[in-house]
């Protein structure tokens, strides 16, 4: 161990032994400020939480509707596929899934 290592250790050991002042009582002002901040955060959450959920739900419903319309349109185009083809996929939904790469 080098000289500087020993010096640093001695300094750190002494610093670790330094007495710490006892924590003061939790002041009334800190308590009140914390509770007020918490109250404000809860109010903001209560205000924007349901709105956020409603918006998310609406966006999901819209996305699902667009997807469903797209799928049924694609399926209706494939329904008239060559009926003489022995390898034709009879289920239009399955065919769309195959063509879009959703299924391996």
């Amino acid at each position, binding site marked *: 161990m080098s000289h500087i290592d020993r010096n640093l250790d001695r300094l750190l050991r002494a610093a670790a032994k*330094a007495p710490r002042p006892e924590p003061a009582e939790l002041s009334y002002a800190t*308590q009140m400020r914390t509770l007020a901040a918490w109250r404000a955060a809860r109010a903001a959450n209560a205000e924007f939480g349901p709105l956020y959920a409603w918006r998310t739900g609406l966006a999901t419903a819209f996305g699902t509707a667009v997807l469903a319309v797209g799928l049924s349109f694609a399926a209706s185009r494939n329904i008239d596929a060559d009926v003489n083809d022995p390898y034709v996929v009879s289920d239009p939904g399955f065919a769309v899934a195959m063509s879009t790469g959703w299924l391996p």
Partner: protein
Amino acid sequence: MDQPELDVEACVARVRDGDEDAARCLMEHLHPLVVKIVRAHLPRRTAEEDLVQAVFAKVFTRLDQFRGEVPLAHWVSRVAVNTCFNELNRERVRPELRHADLSETESEIIQNLAADTGEVPAAQALEAREIVEKLLADLSPADRLVITLLHLEGKSVEDIRVITGWSTPLVKVRAFRARQKMKQRLKSLLRENHP
């Protein structure tokens, strides 16, 4: 007179329901722990009470994330350390410590270290702490945090891993690098003292 033991689990449940009396009880229960952590990692230009308040605000708003897998005190310690760490990150100016910045007693400690006269006397522990604080102020927040936890609070590498969320090798590497930097600073202080 001793205060009756707080039923932490029930208190947490009440706080989650928005009970402010329970929040007040929980704050009083956790205050000594939070103050201890805040004092150990307090940035030089931040008021202790402001940081304590910031820690409690985070504890209450994130209480839903506490799943009870660890004791509440451990979880709160982690929140407090991370809050202090973020605050230290905001403190961008980290002035280099010069010998002229030291008080008379601090200078004497440095002289004794240079002369290699054994342990620093217990009566000078506070000044030694002040020198260490000044040396730490020069380091990055992560380096400062790891040295404080490891050397001043006597935490193990495993404890630090749990508190900070860093991996064990990262804690060790950071501790090593931080120590190297402190050694460099101390060396230049000693050189200034004995050119």
